[in-house]
Structure formats: structure tokens, C-alpha cells
């Protein structure tokens, strides 16, 4: 291949994003410290630009490029659009929070954009090399973002934990990848898929490679029993950063899980299915039961993330098209709910008040009935109360699990969700029936109000009319 033959069109959105991110980096350096709002608006404009770029090239057909190492299909396009949207929402929800804490730095947006670039590379990656590089790009940006509040000891501790454990997970993943490369002789997932299906390669070596890769990826996703870092990082990081790392990166991680296991290693489905069942069962238990004991709203949401990851794994482990589309639907709705949940914290947190404890939500209805209503939608949706978005997501995943005759697993998941409903409803009890400890509402900028209200309304509407999103998720597989 010569450079003339190089077709750059398939990675055009990534190229545009890189150019825009570098330009914003330069502009930000030459600007006065007080004018970070310019960086913010430039970032939002560039997100709109790449959103349009992805949308204009969108197609449900599978297109391979770069010698088969880059894949563009319906899945990658839908995921990219969702990630861009969620990143933009996360930025909008976090600006005031950062300003109040004097950490409104341009680097937050710039690292966020580079992290998004890593995620976009991940969802389009069809070779082990690109998967790993995309993952590292995303993780590196996120480690630095967690440490953005340098003078806060908890933020630094969270960053250190995240970095060390993330590096360990990368090492495990990379070791598995190198073994897989050794036994199949290729980095391309299409070739690996053929080799695994062919059954010529030694099974036990393949299993060891699979074990290492799955452990590494599950570590990054935050499923139990590799979830220990997740509550500490989510709780210790500034809420603005938690917002960012809780939504879009989960989509990208799901993409690699689907490409690597649902596509490349589909030949040994029965083996990785069993492991994923263990991870899913443990995540559902720990996520739902430990969350009950939390007094911090932020930490409770972190444990609820662990249980949502369990549900996402349930969809993937089905190994069917229905299961994958259910997992995609779940991760998209989880992303929205997570943005809303952490968004409420950044909305209520004014200067000096962190608003991340459950007590801070007491009497929210007296302070602002509308905000309490949004909290109600979010908590109902997360708990999976019928006719909310979270309910349809859970239902789709459970259907996929029942289809592969794992009825006991579906029943277990339902029981765990019912246990989980307790702590979501307790939040609402505090918001509606307790006396407020804080009075008054912070004044927030228009874009932040719009995004938070929009998230709540979107979850409400998608819960009442989920057919469109369900159809889209089914169409990409």
C-alpha cells in the first residue's frame, strides 16, 4: 500500500476531531485565564461539527478500511453519535461546577476531546493494535482528568488508584492479546475469527488468552469482582469528571467487548459465556446490595453503575444478535441516566456545598419541585419501574437471556433489581417527604438547565415511546 492508495475518508471524523482538538489546545494556551468560556463554546462547536461529520457518513453497511483494521458499520456510527452527544452533555453539565471550585481549566475540555477521540478509535477498531491504542488514549486522558483538582487529596488519591489499577488491567489485556497474536498469527479480528472457528489452534492456549483479555476488559468496565476501584474513583474525582467518565467510555468499552468476544472469539462462545455469567452474577449482587449501605449519593450511583454493568454483561453473554442489541440499548439508556444522576449533583453543588450526600437531597421538592421531578424520573428509570426507559432496557436484556435458556439467571437479575429498587426509592422518599437541610437553589446557566431538563424529558419520552431506539439498536446487528 502506498500513501496515494490510502483512503482517509473512513476516519474523517477522527481526523477532524484531532485537528479541532489541537487547534483548541493552541487557542486555549494563548488566552487569558478568565476566558475559559471561549474554550467551552469552541469545544461545543467542534462536537457539533464532528457529529455532523459522523452523521453524513452514516450507513448500516459494513465498510472495512486500512487493510481490514478499521471497521465502520451501523454499530460504530450509532455509538459514535451517542458518545459525541453524551460528551457534549457532560461538558454542559460540568462548567458551573468547575467554575465554583476554581478548576475551570481549558485542559478539562481538551483532554475530554482527546478521550473522545480514543473512544471513537475504539468503536471503529477491528484489530488488536487499534483496540489497545484507542483504549490507552482514552484511559490516559481520563487518568489526568480525575487528577484535575490537584489540591484536593481525594481527587489525587482517586487518580493514583485509577492509574495503577488501569495500568494493571492494560497489562493483563495486552498479555492476552499477545498470546492471541501468537497462536493465530494475526492482529486482525476477521482473521482471528476464522482461525478460532477453524478449530486448528490449541484450545487451552486460546482459553488462557481469552481469560487474560476478558479480565483486563472487565476490570476497565468495573464489573465485580474487579470493581474495587470504581466507587473510590467515582467518589473521589470531581463530579464534573465523574459525569464524563461514567457515560461515554462505557459505550466504547462495550464496543470492544462486542468486537473482541462477540465477533473475534465467537467460536468459543460457551467458554467466555460461563465466565461472563460469573462476573454478571457478582456485579448484580455487589452493585445492588452494597449500594443500600451508602450515605453518599455519588457513591451510591457508583455502586449502581456496577449493577448496570452486570446487566450490560448479561446482554453480551447471550452471544446472539438480540443480546448485543439489548446490551447496546442498555448502555445508551444507562449513559443518559448516569448523566442525569451526576448532573443533578453538579446542578445542586454550589460554591462550598458539594451536594453529593444523600442528606443534601432531603426536601428537594420544597426547594424545587421541577428538579425533584427530574430526580423522580431518573430514579424510577434506574430502578426499572415499568414504562420508564430503564425498564425497557432491563426487559430487552432479560428477554435475550431467557432466549438462550438461562431462565435462572433472568430470575436472579429480577430479584436483584427489586433489592436495588429499595435504595433508588429511598432517595425519592428523602426528596419528597423529608425536611430540607439546605434552602434555596443555585442559579445556573441556560445551557446547563436546558441539558439537564432535556435529559430528564428525553428519558421520560423514550420510556413512553421506546420503539424507535429499540428498532435502531436492532437494526445495527
Amino acid at each position, binding site marked *: 500500500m502506498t500513501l496515494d492508495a490510502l483512503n482517509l475518508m473512513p476516519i474523517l471524523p477522527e481526523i477532524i476531531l484531532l485537528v479541532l482538538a489541537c487547534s483548541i489546545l493552541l487557542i486555549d494556551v494563548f488566552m487569558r485565564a478568565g476566558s475559559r468560556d471561549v474554550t467551552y463554546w469552541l469545544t461545543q462547536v467542534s462536537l457539533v461539527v464532528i457529529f455532523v461529520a459522523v452523521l453524513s457518513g452514516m450507513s448500516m453497511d459494513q465498510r472495512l478500511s486500512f487493510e481490514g483494521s478499521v471497521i465502520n458499520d451501523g454499530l460504530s456510527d450509532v455509538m459514535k453519535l451517542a458518545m459525541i452527544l453524551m460528551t457534549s452533555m457532560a461538558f454542559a453539565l460540568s462548567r458551573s461546577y468547575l467554575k465554583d471550585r476554581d478548576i475551570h481549566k481549558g485542559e478539562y475540555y481538551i483532554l475530554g476531546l482527546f478521550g473522545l477521540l480514543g473512544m471513537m478509535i475504539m468503536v471503529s477498531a477491528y484489530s488488536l493494535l487499534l483496540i489497545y491504542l484507542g483504549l490507552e488514549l482514552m484511559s490516559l486522558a481520563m487518568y*489526568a482528568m480525575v487528577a484535575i483538582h490537584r489540591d484536593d487529596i481525594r481527587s489525587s488519591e482517586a487518580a493514583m488508584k485509577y492509574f495503577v489499577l488501569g495500568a494493571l488491567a492494560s497489562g493483563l489485556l495486552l498479555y492476552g492479546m499477545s498470546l492471541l497474536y501468537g497462536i493465530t498469527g494475526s492482529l486482525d479480528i476477521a482473521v482471528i475469527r476464522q482461525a478460532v472457528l477453524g478449530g486448528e489452534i490449541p484450545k487451552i492456549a486460546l482459553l488462557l488468552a481469552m481469560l487474560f483479555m476478558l479480565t483486563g476488559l472487565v476490570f476497565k468496565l468495573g464489573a465485580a469482582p474487579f470493581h474495587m476501584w470504581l466507587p473510590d474513583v467515582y467518589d473521589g474525582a470531581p463530579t464534573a469528571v465523574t459525569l464524563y467518565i461514567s457515560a461515554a467510555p462505557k459505550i466504547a468499552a462495550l464496543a470492544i467487548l462486542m468486537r473482541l468476544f462477540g465477533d473475534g472469539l465467537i467460536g468459543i462462545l460457551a467458554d467466555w459465556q460461563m465466565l461472563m455469567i460469573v462476573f454478571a452474577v457478582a456485579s448484580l449482587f455487589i452493585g445492588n446490595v452494597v449500594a443500600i449501605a451508602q450515605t453518599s449519593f455519588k457513591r451510591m450511583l457508583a455502586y449502581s453503575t456496577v449493577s448496570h454493568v452486570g446487566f450490560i454483561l448479561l446482554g453480551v453473554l447471550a452471544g446472539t444478535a438480540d443480546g448485543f442489541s439489548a446490551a447496546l440499548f442498555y448502555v445508551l439508556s444507562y449513559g443518559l441516566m448516569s448523566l442525569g444522576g451526576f448532573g443533578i449533583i453538579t446542578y445542586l453543588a454550589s460554591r462550598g456545598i458539594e451536594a453529593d450526600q444523600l442528606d443534601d437531597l432531603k426536601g428537594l421538592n420544597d426547594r424545587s419541585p421541577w428538579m425533584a421531578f427530574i430526580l423522580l424520573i431518573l430514579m424510577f428509570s434506574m430502578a426499572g419501574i415499568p414504562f420508564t426507559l430503564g425498564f425497557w432496557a432491563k426487559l430487552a436484556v432479560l428477554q435475550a437471556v431467557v432466549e438462550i435458556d438461562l431462565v435462572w439467571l433472568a430470575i436472579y437479575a429480577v430479584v436483584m433489581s427489586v433489592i436495588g429498587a429499595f435504595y433508588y426509592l429511598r432517595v425519592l422518599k428523602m426528596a419528597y417527604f423529608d425536611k430540607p437541610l439546605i434552602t434555596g437553589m443555585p442559579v445556573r446557566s441556560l445551557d446547563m438547565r436546558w441539558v439537564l431538563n432535556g435529559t430528564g424529558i428525553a428519558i421520560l419520552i423514550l420510556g413512553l415511546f421506546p420503539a424507535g431506539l429499540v428498532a435502531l439498536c436492532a437494526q445495527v446487528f
Partner: protein
Amino acid sequence: MSFIKLLFLVFASSAVLSAFMMVTTRNTVYAALYLVLTFFSTALTWLLLEAEFLSIVLILVYVGAVMVLFLFVVMMLDVNTAATREGFVRFLPLGAGVAIIMMLEMSLVLGPKLFGLDVYPAPVPKAADYSNTEAIGSVLYTVYVYPFEIAAVILLVAMVAAIMLTLRRRPETKYQDAAAQAKVRREDRVRMVKMESETRVADIAKQGDGA
């Protein structure tokens, strides 16, 4: 046993031994030097694999640049080795257990039964005039241009992150601004004040008498 195999055993065992010493030694400077030896031994085994370019790059970049920098850092920081060893005995059984299980698993799989020469035959050695560097160069900027560029972006992000985390503006520190010093004008430093001239007390008294 062929000469190459003997060389391999020497280099490989020195790599493993120095890696072990690096982890267990008490002195951090020695640890860094043992790491240099590990890199060096690894580079030599790569040389046996006919990967000359990578082998030299490993020595140039890791030993020459990264480790030297690392040594500086180690010498400048006052690392409390006692504190880092805290809890070593408490976590030793767990850590050793995990390590032994992983080692057993790996030795079960990675033995000659599955990865022997009959399964994966040794590649045919290239001719003496074969250029390893050229081979890498011809794919690095064509087939692997996309991963190459992503690696560059990763380095950029690392740079941005490092600057963000360490750049600290201290308003309380005093420093000289040569440009401002040179640009200074007389008006900035000297303020002309018009004052009435002093009068003696005796004169005031005289004026008082006159009135």
C-alpha cells in the same frame, strides 16, 4: 547445544535475574540500574531474533534516555523505603499465592507441547544484506500509519496531562521580569511632588506679631 542457544540462555537468565533483583533490592538507585540490565539483556535476545533495529532502539531510547532520566528522578526524590515496605509481610501470602497460580497456569500452557518447534517452526534466517530497518520503515508509514499516528496523539495527551498536573502559578513567589525592567520609564519610578517650602518657627512668630 548450539552457540546461539547458549547465548540465548545467558541473556534470558540474566534478564530474569536482574528483573527479580530490581523488585527485591532495597536501594532504589540499584533497582534502576538492575532495570537497565533487564532492558539490555532483552535487547540482546531481540538481537538473536534478527530484530536489530528494535534492539538498538530499545537500548538508545530506554537505557539511554528513559532510564537516565529515571535515575535523576530517583536521586532527587527522597523516597522513604521503609514506608513503601509497610505491609509487605501482611500481603506477601496473598501476592505470592496469586503469582504462583499464574505461573503454574502459564507454564501449563506455554510449554513446548503447544508452542514447540514442531507446531511453530523457526523462521528461515534472512540473508546478511537484509535490512531490518527498511522492512519496518516500509510498513510503519503505510500499513500501520493509523496506529502510528494514534501513538503520536497518546504522547501529546501525556504531555498535556503532565503540564496540566505540574504547572503551578505561584503568585507569592518573587521573580524578575527582564522585559518589564528594560521598558521601565522615569515616570513609573519617580513621582514629582510639589510641596511648599518650609518656613522657620521664628518667621511664623514674627508674622504673628505683625498681624
